[in-house]
Structures are given as structure tokens and as C-alpha cells.
């Protein structure tokens, strides 16, 4: 158990900047991987975690090169090996499970061929033995009908299935060490929980060591024995998983854990100020100095070494770690938010809204006949009060973004009405809406990289809505822009910046400022934090809440992340396949009784706590179309009671706490089942 498989010694990796300076991305990293152990490497984007993981396979990305140090696999330095030697190790001794299996599988080759290729390279089996092995492997990763799966192309599989194929491919060479680079990022919550469960099973079953790289402490908590925390290219904390997650003694880890929204906590997570420094920008002192609330003058001048603390079995890079010992009760706290006035008027009503993506056939169009009897989104009835944050939650394909787009007028509704202010019907066609309605409803997109014009400065970006809706110009325009920037906590000097000169969090702040420039009544938020790092996400959530409390804006907040939704929203609507399952005040939706789908979602959430295991109650099958009749969740429901679920749309039942559930099971019975 204590045999060391791979050992990284004083590794630094960097690149040459355009000015000819050497800039390091990894600085002096040392760590050991023991046999049979799973090590989680966690850090935010740009922390160097993927670079470290790839270097552990002897792979350095183009443009980078090792500056010093070594990666010893069974006491041989991978970084000094020829590519011939590496081919013998990669896939056979160390195998990789990539982040996005959809892109990591070669599109023109069948699944079976790609697994066979690994078998041919790394085993001596003959053709018939290999064929047998392929279906064994596909069976092992629990893919449905493994016999026919081998003849399919990667794009014919769902995201979860592709990830399973990648696992099967990695297992083909019976490696001693598995490297997992964000293997569940980008998968749906339930799929993610299932893939993690599979990985845990494989680690136990085969005794393989694993290196699990992720930004997600929730996923890391589920699989790791030991955790390495990286910040700005350095290891800042390393130790047993439970210790790191429950008693973090580095201020960065502490802040990171506090900034994760948790299911058990209502209210917003605390945010860390600032963002991670760019590579090459740190000259002296601790790299976390700018963001640290324990920092002293010593931290500014001298950079701390990684110190081993025997009694905690932990390495920490901090001068002041002692202040954090026994501070951990504070981890389970959050910022309470003001809830809205429940007497407020209803500002937006969705009445029987249905939306269809199906194109009308030519002749149907002529006859003005609507052909799609089974639209993507159907029968949505939601009334939204002024000043309320309502969240639409569901996995991909649940129709949540579709609904948002049709409120914004970007997508026509097939049936039903969207009513705004005093029951005035909004046209479903953007061009038919009057300018004031357009101003009143603003949209913030998921990815600020794509929603901000790269050729416009922040000033230009913010001045557009001000000019368009309020005809501002000159000094007044400038004053308004500065005010907006102040609102989102950005300084005046950001005006002349281009989006590429901003960090992810700053870009999203600019996007928020642009939405608020129109002085809107309703802001539609489409997964606004899912492209951001956790610590930045907390800051953006706090900002949105603050702005809402100051200005009385109404949010429609779309997210797949139940913990984020819990933190920000007053009311939650759970969607499956474009149909509402449950709607109610958020504190009640997160309590039982729930709709069986809400139960499945809540069970699959990964908490950054090794003691809370996800509950897998339903299969992670992907359904391409909503069922034609009956309950939308009939295909996956763990509590299905019979034919009635397939034939009749379930009725709405109101629970005692005021949340409405659409299920055939009596609500009291549901409550006792879920106890």
C-alpha cells in the first residue's frame, strides 16, 4: 500500500513570453502517488492542475516546456524519455480519461475500433480474444447492450455513454495509474453521480491508483483519499481528504470551501475578493497575498514554503495557518438574504405556454396547421412577482433555457401567452414588441466570452443600451457608465478595456452592468455562473443579490446547479422534458415531500463532504423526446406506480408548505415514502 508509483520532484513548467522572459505555469511542484491510492488535484482554472496531470504522463502541451524537476514513474523520468519509450508506458502503465469524451474520441472511428486499438497496442490477445475483451470492458463500464455498442460511432452516444467508453478504453491496457482530467465536468448532475460511482467501483475492483483532477470539490470529495490543492501553479495544501475538506488550514482552501453553495444552507455563500494572479505576475511574496484576510507584511515580502505538519499529516504553504486551526465551525455558515415581499404584484405571467422546435412542413404552413402535437415545452404556468427571484431548474433538455428565450422574445411560442405588467400580452415576436417592453426585459448569457463583442471597449459595450433606451450622450453618458461600473464593483479605468483584457468574473460583471444599464424590470439569467470558478461564482451571486435588494429587480434564474439555485432563489420551478414537475418556495422544494424527479436531482448533488454520498435512485438514461402522453418523468421514475403514469397527465397537488407537485402519488403518501 505504501509503494510509491509516481513521484513528481521540484517540477516547474513554463513558456517563453513574447518579450523573451521565462514564465512558469507550474512552480516547484513535488508530490507522490502511492499504489492503490486516489489523489484529488483541485484548483481553479489557471492553477496549473491539468498541466501537472499531463506532465505525469510525460506529456507537455505545445508551447510549454519543463524548466526543472522530474516526473519519476517507477523511478524513471518520464520527461527524459523518447516518444518510443513513452508509447510503451502511455495506455499500458498510465492511462488517461479525458475531460470531454465527446471530443476526445476520434469521430471517424467506431467505438469498438478505438478500444481494440488500445488492446492491440498493449496486450498480446488475438482477434477473437480481443473481441471478447471489448464486450467485457463495455459491460464493465455498464453500457447498455455492449455487443452492439462496439459498432457505433462516438456521436451516436450520449455524453455519459461517451465518458464510459473513455473509461473502458483507459482500462483496456490494465494500467497501474489512471489519470482523470475533469472526467465529469459538463455532464448532467445525475449522469455525473453515476460516472463517479463507476469510477469508485473501478478503483476498488482493480486496485488502480488514480489521479483525479477537478475544479469541483464536490466530485473530489467523493473519490479521493488524499487531496492536493493548487493555486497559481503551486501546491498550497496537501493532506488526507477528510482533513482538507473538514479542517482546511490554508486560507485559500478555507475561502474556496466557504464559497461553494451548499444544499443544506439557505442564503448566499461567502465570496473571496479578487481573482487568481496571471502567470508571470508574481515576483515576490505569497501568491495568495492579495486575496488573503490573514496576510501580514511578511507575506508580501517572503513566499512561504510548503511546511509539513506532522500531527495533521498535512503540508501547508502559509505563515499563518495556525489561526485557521479549530476555526471550522464557520464553514457551515452563509450570508442571509432579504426575502422579497410576498404581497407584491405579479409582474410576469406565463399562461399555458408551449414552445416547439419542430419545423412546420411546407403544406402545413400553407394550411396554417400546427403539426407538432408533442412540443418541446408544454403547459407552462408560472406567475412571477415583482422583486422575486424565481429559478428554473433541470438537466440539459429540460427546456429551461427555451422558456427563457421565449420570454425574451427570441423564440416564438406555439401556444399560450406571456403577460407583462397588468396582464398586457407580450407578442411572442420580438419585432412586434414596443421599445419600452424590450428595455424592461434584459438577458444575461452564460458565457460572457461570447456575449461581449471582442472589438468593443467596456465603455462602448455599456453605452449601447444607454444610447438606445435613454438617448444619453456626452458627459451624462459617461457619468452613467461610471455609475454602472461602480454598481458592479469595477473601477472607472475599466472603461477603456477590451473584454480580452478582463478575467472571467470581470467579464460577467460587465455583462451584468450591461443588463442593468437598461434599468430593466426583469432580468433573465441563463446559467450566468456556470462558466465561472467557484470563488468568482460566489462573488457574482452576491452582486446579483445586492443589486436586486437595491433596485427591486425581478430575476428569472436558469441553472442546472441545485445548490446555486438554493442560494439565490426565492422560488424554484423544477422542469423535466419541458414540463413542470414541481414549483414552490425554495425552502420547501428542498424539503420532502418532493416530486420524484426533484428527489432524484437532490440525491445526485455532490457536496464537498466525504460523509455525504450521493443517492442514485434513477438511471441516467437520456430521453430524446418527451413522452406523448402521461407523466413526463414516466421513463425514469423510481416511484412509478403503473399504467396511470403512462396514460394520464398527473394532477397538481399542493403540499402543506405551499409547494405544488405534479404526481399521481398522493402527496401524504409521497411524504411517508421519502422519509
Amino acid at each position, binding site marked *: 500500500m505504501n509503494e510509491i508509483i509516481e513521484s513528481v520532484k521540484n517540477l516547474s513548467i513554463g513558456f517563453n513570453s513574447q518579450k523573451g522572459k521565462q514564465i512558469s505555469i507550474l512552480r516547484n511542484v513535488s508530490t507522490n502517488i502511492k499504489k492503490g491510492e486516489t489523489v484529488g488535484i483541485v484548483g481553479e482554472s489557471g492553477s496549473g492542475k491539468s498541466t501537472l496531470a*499531463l506532465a505525469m*504522463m510525460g*506529456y507537455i502541451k*505545445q508551447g510549454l516546456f519543463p524548466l526543472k524537476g522530474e516526473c519519476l514513474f517507477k523511478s524513471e523520468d518520464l520527461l527524459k524519455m523518447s*516518444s518510443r519509450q*513513452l*508509447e*510503451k*508506458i*502511455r*495506455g*499500458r502503465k498510465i*492511462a*488517461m480519461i*479525458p*475531460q*470531454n469524451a465527446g*471530443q*476526445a*474520441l*476520434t*469521430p*471517424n*472511428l467506431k467505438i469498438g475500433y478505438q478500444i481494440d*486499438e*488500445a488492446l492491440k*497496442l*498493449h496486450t498480446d490477445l488475438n482477434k477473437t480474444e480481443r473481441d471478447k475483451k471489448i464486450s467485457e470492458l463495455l459491460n464493465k463500464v455498464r453500457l447498455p447492450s455492449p455487443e452492439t455498442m462496439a459498432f457505433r*460511432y462516438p*456521436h*451516436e452516444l450520449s455524453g455519459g455513454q461517451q465518458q464510459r467508453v*473513455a473509461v473502458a*478504453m483507459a482500462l483496456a*491496457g490494465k494500467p497501474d495509474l489512471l489519470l482523470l482530467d475533469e472526467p465529469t465536468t459538463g455532464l448532467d448532475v445525475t449522469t455525473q453521480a453515476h460516472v463517479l460511482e463507476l469510477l469508485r467501483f473501478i478503483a476498488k475492483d482493480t486496485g488502480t491508483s488514480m489521479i483525479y483532477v477537478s475544479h469541483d470539490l464536490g466530485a473530489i470529495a467523493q473519490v479521493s483519499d488524499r487531496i492536493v490543492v493548487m493555486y497559481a501553479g503551486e501546491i498550497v495544501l496537501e493532506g488526507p481528504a477528510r482533513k482538507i475538506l473538514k479542517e482546511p488550514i490554508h486560507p485559500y482552501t478555507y475561502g474556496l470551501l466557504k464559497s461553494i453553495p451548499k444544499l443544506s444552507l439557505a442564503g448566499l455563500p461567502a465570496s473571496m475578493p479578487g481573482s487568481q494572479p496571471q502567470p508571470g505576475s508574481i515576483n515576490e511574496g505569497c501568491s495568495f497575498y492579495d486575496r488573503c484576510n490573514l496576510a501580514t507584511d511578511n507575506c508580501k515580502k517572503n513566499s512561504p514554503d510548503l511546511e509539513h505538519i506532522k500531527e495533521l499529516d498535512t503540508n501547508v504553504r502559509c505563515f499563518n495557518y495556525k489561526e485557521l486551526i479549530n476555526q471550522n465551525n464557520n464553514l457551515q455558515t452563509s450570508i442571509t438574504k432579504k426575502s422579497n415581499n410576498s404581497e407584491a404584484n405579479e409582474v410576469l405571467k406565463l399562461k399555458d405556454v408551449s414552445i416547439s422546435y419542430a419545423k412546420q412542413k411546407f403544406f402545413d404552413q400553407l394550411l396554417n396547421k400546427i403539426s407538432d402535437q408533442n412540443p418541446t415545452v408544454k403547459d407552462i404556468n408560472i406567475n412571477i412577482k415583482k422583486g422575486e427571484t424565481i429559478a428554473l431548474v433541470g438537466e440539459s433538455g429540460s427546456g429551461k433555457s427555451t422558456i427563457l428565450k421565449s420570454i425574451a422574445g427570441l423564440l416564438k411560442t406555439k401556444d399560450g401567452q406571456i403577460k407583462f405588467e397588468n396582464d398586457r400580452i407580450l407578442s411572442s415576436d420580438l419585432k412586434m414588441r414596443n421599445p419600452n417592453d424590450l428595455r424592461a426585459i434584459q438577458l444575461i448569457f452564460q458565457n460572457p466570452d461570447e456575449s461581449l463583442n471582442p472589438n468593443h471597449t467596456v465603455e462602448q459595450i455599456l453605452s449601447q443600451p444607454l444610447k438606445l433606451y435613454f438617448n444619453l450622450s456626452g458627459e451624462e453618458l459617461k457619468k452613467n457608465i461610471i455609475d454602472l461600473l461602480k454598481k458592479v464593483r469595477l473601477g472607472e479605468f475599466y472603461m477603456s478595456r477590451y473584454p480580452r483584457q478582463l478575467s472571467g468574473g470581470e467579464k460577467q460583471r460587465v455583462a451584468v452592468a450591461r443588463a442593468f444599464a437598461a434599468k430593466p424590470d426583469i432580468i433573465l439569467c441563463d446559467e450566468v455562473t456556470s462558466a465561472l470558478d467557484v470563488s468568482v461564482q460566489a462573488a457574482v451571486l452576491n452582486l446579483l443579490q445586492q443589486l436586486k435588494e437595491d433596485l427591486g429587480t425581478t430575476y428569472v434564474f436558469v441553472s442546472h446547479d441545485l445548490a446555486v439555485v438554493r442560494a439565490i432563489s426565492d422560488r424554484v420551478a423544477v422542469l423535466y422534458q419541458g414540463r413542470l414537475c414541481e414549483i414552490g418556495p425554495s425552502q420547501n422544494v428542498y424539503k420532502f415531500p418532493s416530486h420524484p424527479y426533484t428527489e432524484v436531482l437532490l440525491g445526485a448533488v455532490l457536496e464537498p463532504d466525504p460523509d455525504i454520498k450521493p443517492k442514485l435512485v434513477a438511471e441516467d438514461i437520456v430521453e430524446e423526446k418527451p413522452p406523448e402522453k402521461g407523466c413526463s418523468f414516466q421513463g425514469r421514475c423510481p416511484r412509478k406506480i403503473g399504467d396511470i403514469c403512462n396514460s394520464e397527465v398527473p394532477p397538481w397537488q399542493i403540499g402543506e408548505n405551499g409547494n405544488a407537485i405534479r404526481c399521481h402519488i398522493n402527496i401524504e403518501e409521497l411524504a411517508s415514502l421519502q422519509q
Partner: protein
Amino acid sequence: MLLLILKRIGLGLITLFIVSLITFVGVEVLPGDACTTYLEREAYGAALDACIKRLGLDVPAYERYLDWASNVVRGDFGYSLSGEMPINEVLGPRVKNSLVLASVSILIGIPLAIVLGIITALWRDKLPDIMISTITIFSMTIPEFISATLLILIVAIWLGWLPGIVIIPSDATFYELLSNIILPVVAISMIMTAHMARMVRSSVIQVMASDYVQMAILKGVPYWKMVFRHVLPNALLPAINVVALTIAWLLGGVVVTEVVFNYPGLGRLVIESISNRDLPVVQALAIILASIYVGINLIADLMTLMLNPRLKSLQIRK
């Protein structure tokens, strides 16, 4: 799949029909007609009447179109004015000559372009890439009338190795042609190969940077196996359409090169018949060139469909 092919062929036929209409109408609305052009100053009185009668210009336009179109469908393009011989006889040898020139250029140019593109991509920013890329960019930027003239000057006049211009009857045999077309082929290939090599290069570079290539490396796949199994099939797929356009361009007549080398191909025929105002020939050429473009693009689309598993299963599912 079959339905899709039929659909595409149908669309192609509609395109051809529209092209034929446009050329016919275009010829109609031009001032003067075939007879005034042909007779020039004598275009009056009895001679003109006789000519109009002989060519059937006295019947209404739509009847003439239908008559012409039905003949074309049967493969008969009518009579040329200037040569007063069946257009099929005028076209036949020209089509053959163009085919010979195009196919020799394709056989040499396309494999060369693919090889050069792959070499430059795999040795990106190293010596082979820098050398080949400099040459390809150079030959891309020089207009063909200059490169062709230079070729004649150096190879034919200074060195005297090959004939400078092609002086052969338009019905020469294949072997007679072959020795004469070396210089034109070189001139055409220079530009064509350069363009395609650049395209293949960027496509290979793009695929080399993809996640699945990194995955193949991390799986332990040996370098050349990775290049042939994981990179090339995906990188060359988008090249098919460019190859198709190039072939169509070649068959449609490389006008400038044909003129410089005095090569009796379709391109020169286009110029000649336009300047002679030989309208029936112009019409026939328009139809033939349009069919070449439509046909070759159809083949390219179908090939892409067959080779790309993604598109293939998409079509089957529909």
C-alpha cells in the same frame, strides 16, 4: 440515402434548366441576332430573310427554346454559325483536350498538394514547412499569365527542351498531346497545388490540435499510426469540396493558360465563340460547363456524406 441522391440529382437538373433559360433569354435580349451577326453588313433584304428562315428565327422564342432544349436533351446542340458544322463536332475534340489537360494536372497536382500539405503541417514551423510554404505562397501570388510566360521563356526558349506553344490540330491523338502539354500542366499545377496544399495544411494543423489527437497520443498510439488513422481521415474530409471545385475549374477551361500556350481546349473555345458572336456555341458551352459544375459538386457532396459517419447517420435517422 437513395432518396437523398435522387433529391440532389433533381436539384441539379433544376439548376441546369434555369441556366439554360438564362442563357437563352440572355441571347434573345441582346440587340441583333445570329443572322445579323453572321451576315454583318449584308444583313438586309433577301439575304437576311433567307438566313432567318434557314435558322428558324421566324418562329416565336418559346417554341425555339423548346425545340432547342429537346434537342439538347437528346444530345444535339445544333449548328455552329462560324464553322457551319454540327456543334457536337466542334465541341468533341475540345472536350477531349480539356479532359486530357485537366486529368493530367489532377493526377499530378492533387496527390502532390495533399503530400505537401501534410508535410508542412506535421513539420510546422520547421525547415520543411518554411521552405515549402515559401514556395507555395510564391507560386500562389504570381498570376498564371506571368508564370506561364516565364516557363516558355526559360524552358522553351533558353533551354529549348520543350515546344513553347502547342501547335497541334484539335483532333490530335492522346500521345501527340502528351508531349505538348507538359508546360501547360506545370503552369496550372503550380497555382492549383499551392492553393490546395495551404488548405490541407491548415486543416491538418487544426485536427492535430484536437482533443482526440491528444487522446490518441496519451493512449500510446505510435506517431505515424496516429497520423494515418486519427488525423488524416478527419483532416482530408473538408478537402473533398475544394478538390471538386478545382476539378470543375480545370474542366471548365483554364482560359488564360490555354490562350498563352495556344492550347485548343474548352476555355479558348469560350473566348473564340464569344468574340465571333457564335451564339449557338456559347449556349452549348454554358450548358456543358454548368453540367460539369453541378455534376462534380454532386459527386463531392455525396462523397462527403458517405465518408463522414456523422452526416451519414444523421441522414439515415431522418
